[in-house]
């Protein structure tokens, strides 16, 4: 299975090159890859339908116990076949649809990369790899929605889809990690088999909320649905593939996959049923209102996603059977319809149903397949969609009171599908030919072969229910967690479900015939809603911007003193707080009190420091600095560090020389940098706190016994190995010579840097218009405050 995923990624990698070499055939050649993988997966149909589960485990991050584990059971096999099977037709279709597009090769790359990610997602048994593939599908979806990146609207839709689904992805990651902690491992099969009762665990609710957030954003459940209609800005093959048949079903796949471990509780049932039903009804009504063929289909997709979520939530045997059948039925008819809509767009130049009419004579093939698929969508016998709807109703009737709650909504939602089917077939194809129909023409075979196969399958599976039944049984078993079998028949006798179907058809027909009124009524409702979600999105983004700006202004005020204050406060607060909280403070043994020279030098250091701090003239400050520095040097000399002491003495001299040289050219200390009392108080508090933390740390460090290891080594080796009696110098030039080499390089760089800074001024300036207005260099620093 790893090989199957890798082969598709490999095809993605070579796709642009292949397209450049063979632009006319590349789509056929590339379609062979998913076709081959489909055939490879098809061989598992027998065993998996018989109840077998195929596992493959490849170590990935052994240190963390993360594996690349794949599982093939009914659910993942169905998805794998859909991904690769529909993917085959989509790849071929893209060749015809995007014919001559300048970035066609890139499109294949994105498309196949998505295919590989999606395949990995549905096969993954390890939650970490599941998450990685999940995010990969979000990223590739972003690239595909924004494929026409010159278009601002495409870019916005792409970003919207990415942000919504990745926010959900983050929640999902947290949920999966929590799940892994509870389940003591990352493998889903292991969690199912472990017997750990997730439902009774204290973390059940957080896990559920986080994972459902991931699933609902991905599968566009209300109120996270708004990105999906916008995603229709993508080229049609993408809409057909990602945003109807595969990627948006990832969320549905996830809840189905986790049903055995997390499902069955009241929270689960009510949450999924409520969100699913609302989404289904919403999507159905919006579909009737839309006039763009692709938007109509996008909203019917919302309806399907809601229905599937709801069915998993109900969780009864018939509901899950309905889930399996409706999942397959929807993928077949929706893929066909999208591709058909794309062919209409391609042939007439418009997707607006109000401008399309009487296409039938010009586009018989496309029309035929759209008709077949629409009938399946409408849920009419003998199509596969009818079987799905019957089982759906059975499931709701079976679920008792919960079922009745959703029943009303679902009858309405299904009825809208009939109306939408009319919108998709009757309006464009029948009636008097419109202006747009005059130049209509059938596309190349690559444009109608996909719809042909998918729509025909929808009819075949309906007529011969025994064909898909074994796989449907395996899917139901995988979702239910126990073995189930499915029998599919068109005629069950006069059941309540059949009655509901009849009601649905009548209602749907009424909806379509009264479409004008329905649309008008829905118009107001829609303006009050979708627009709001979309506008809210902009508000959220603006809010994030404002927050970022506020934080930036606070932290990055553009004022040096503020930066210093923040940096220093954090630098000293962190170790100080740590010392306090960890109880690390200790007092050293007090020794050496009777060393008058040491006392005196410490006094001089402090005198010089505070003198420099309080000095009002520069010369006084320099003098005070010298006193302090001199005292430091003498301290080194007194406490057994002659080399350091002499160095410090010399450096003191040079420091004074350099400062005096520069001072002559700089302005005197003026009142301009004086700050108000409050600022001075803040400075003083931070300064005293910093000093206090330093003293506390130093005392605690000194209280620890010193490890003699290194000094003993140097003492013993200095003369014997390095022939030097001055141990300090031997360390500098020999033991730590490499270190010293780095240090003298710094000295060299500083020297050259000073030269460069000073000489750069003499070079001619390219332009005088620096970002800031250039101030007069001669102007003294006067009294006015900043």
């Amino acid at each position, binding site marked *: 299975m790893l090989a199957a995923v890798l082969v598709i990624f490999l095809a993605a990698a070579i796709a642009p090159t292949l397209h450049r070499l063979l632009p006319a055939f590349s789509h056929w050649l590339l379609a062979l890859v998913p076709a081959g993988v489909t055939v490879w997966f098809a061989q598992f149909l027998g065993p998996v339908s018989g109840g077998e589960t195929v596992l493959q485990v490849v170590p990935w991050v052994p240190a963390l116990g993360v594996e690349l584990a794949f599982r093939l059971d009914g659910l993942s096999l169905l998805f794998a076949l859909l991904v690769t099977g529909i993917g085959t037709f989509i790849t071929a279709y893209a060749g015809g649809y995007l014919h001559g597009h300048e970035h066609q090769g890139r499109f294949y790359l994105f498309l196949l990369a998505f295919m590989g990610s999606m395949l990995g997602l549905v096969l993954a048994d390890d939650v970490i790899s599941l998450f990685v593939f999940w995010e990969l599908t979000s990223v590739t979806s972003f690239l595909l929605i924004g494929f026409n990146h010159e278009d601002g609207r495409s870019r916005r839709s792409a970003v919207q889809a990415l942000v919504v689904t990745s926010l959900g992805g983050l929640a999902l990651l947290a949920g999966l990690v929590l799940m892994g902690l509870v389940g003591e491992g990352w493998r889903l099969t292991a969690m199912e088999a472990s017997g750990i009762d997730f439902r009774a665990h204290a973390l059940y609710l957080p896990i559920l909320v986080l994972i459902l957030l991931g699933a609902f954003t991905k599968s566009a459940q209300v109120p996270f649905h708004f990105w999906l209609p916008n995603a229709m800005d993508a080229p049609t093959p993408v809409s057909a593939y990602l945003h109807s048949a595969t990627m948006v079903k990832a969320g549905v796949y996830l809840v189905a996959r986790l049903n055995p471990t997390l499902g069955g509780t009241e929270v689960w049932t009510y949450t999924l049923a409520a969100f699913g039903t609302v989404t289904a009804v919403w999507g159905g009504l919006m579909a009737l209102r839309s006039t763009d063929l692709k938007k109509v289909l996008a909203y019917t997709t919302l309806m399907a996603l809601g229905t599937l979520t709801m069915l998993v939530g109900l969780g009864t045997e018939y509901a899950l059977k309905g889930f399996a059948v409706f999942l397959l039925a929807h993928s077949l008819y929706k893929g066909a319809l999208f591709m058909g809509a794309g062919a209409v767009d391609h042939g007439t130049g418009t997707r607006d149903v109000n401008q399309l009419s009487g296409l039938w004579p010009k586009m018989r093939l496309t029309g035929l397949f759209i008709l077949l698929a629409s009938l399946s969508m409408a849920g009419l016998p003998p199509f596969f969609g009818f079987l799905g709807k019957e089982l759906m109703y059975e499931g709701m009737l079976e679920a008792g009171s919960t079922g009745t709650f959703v029943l009303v909504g679902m009858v309405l939602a299904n009825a809208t599908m009939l109306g939408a089917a009319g919108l998709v077939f009757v309006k464009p194809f029948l009636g008097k030919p419109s202006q747009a129909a005059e130049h209509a023409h059938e596309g190349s075979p690559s444009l109608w072969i996909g719809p042909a196969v998918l729509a025909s399958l929808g009819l075949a599976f309906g007529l011969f229910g025994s064909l898909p039944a074994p796989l449907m049984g395996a899917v139901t078993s995988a979702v239910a967690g126990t073995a189930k079998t499915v029998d599919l028949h068109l005629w069950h006798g006069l059941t309540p479900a059949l009655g509901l179907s009849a009601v649905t058809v009548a209602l749907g027909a009424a909806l379509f015939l009264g479409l004008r009124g329905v649309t008008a009524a829905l118009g107001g409702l829609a303006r009050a809603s979708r627009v709001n979600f979309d506008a809210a999105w902009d508000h959220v983004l603006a809010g994030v911007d404002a927050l970022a700006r506020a934080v930036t202004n606070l932290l990055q005020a553009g004022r040096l003193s503020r930066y*210093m204050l923040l940096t220093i406060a954090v630098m000293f607060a962190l170790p100080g707080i740590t010392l306090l909280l960890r109880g690390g403070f200790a007092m050293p043994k007090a020794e050496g009190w009777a060393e008058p020279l040491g006392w005196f030098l410490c006094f001089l250091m402090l005198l010089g420091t505070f003198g420099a701090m309080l000095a009002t003239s520069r010369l006084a400050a320099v003098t005070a600095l010298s006193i302090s520095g001199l005292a430091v040097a003498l301290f080194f000399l007194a406490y057994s560090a002659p080399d350091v002491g002499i160095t410090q003495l010399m450096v003191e001299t040079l420091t004074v020389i350099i400062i005096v040289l520069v001072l002559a050219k700089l302005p005197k200390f003026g009142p301009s940098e004086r700050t108000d009392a409050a600022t001075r108080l803040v400075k003083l508090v931070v300064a005293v706190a910093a000093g206090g933390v330093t003293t506390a740390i130093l005392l605690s460090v000194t209280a620890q016994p010193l490890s003699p290891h290194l000094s003993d080594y140097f003492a013993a080796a200095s003369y014997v190995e390095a022939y030097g009696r001055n141990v300090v110098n031997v360390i500098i030039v020999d033991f730590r010579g490499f270190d010293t080499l780095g240090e003298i390089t710094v000295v060299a760089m500083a020297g050259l840097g000073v030269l460069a800074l000073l000489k750069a001024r003499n070079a001619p300036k390219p332009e005088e218009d620096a970002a800031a207005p250039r101030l007069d260099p001669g102007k003294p620093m006067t009294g006015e405050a900043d």
Partner: protein
Amino acid sequence: MEVVLAFTIGGLVTGAVYMLLSRNLLRLLFGVIILSNAVNLSIFLAGGLDYGVPPLIQGADKVLEGTYANPLPQALILTAIVIGFSLLAFALVLVYRGWQDMGTIDGDALRVAEPVETTPALEAAARARKHGRETA
């Protein structure tokens, strides 16, 4: 002496930080000088204080024996002093060049990199977003 020095270093850091927070860049540099002294003394203190026993191998001895001062901190501080001086000189020249080009040594008045107005990048981002919304 350790305790006395620890408190002295605390005092040095207090003075240094106070000066680092000033708006006058020259004062800030003076703060840097004191801070680097304080850091050097800290390293010295952490290595242990010994009065009057420099780490020199005497006469006919081949190894250091008895009480001797810890040589490693001394080696580290020695080079640190020279580097500290080099960087100070560099910083001082930077301040001088700032004065030449911008006419101020008030740190808060140096706003070339971050002018008071919003940056062009922010404006461009806002424009792009607005554009995307309008075409949507």
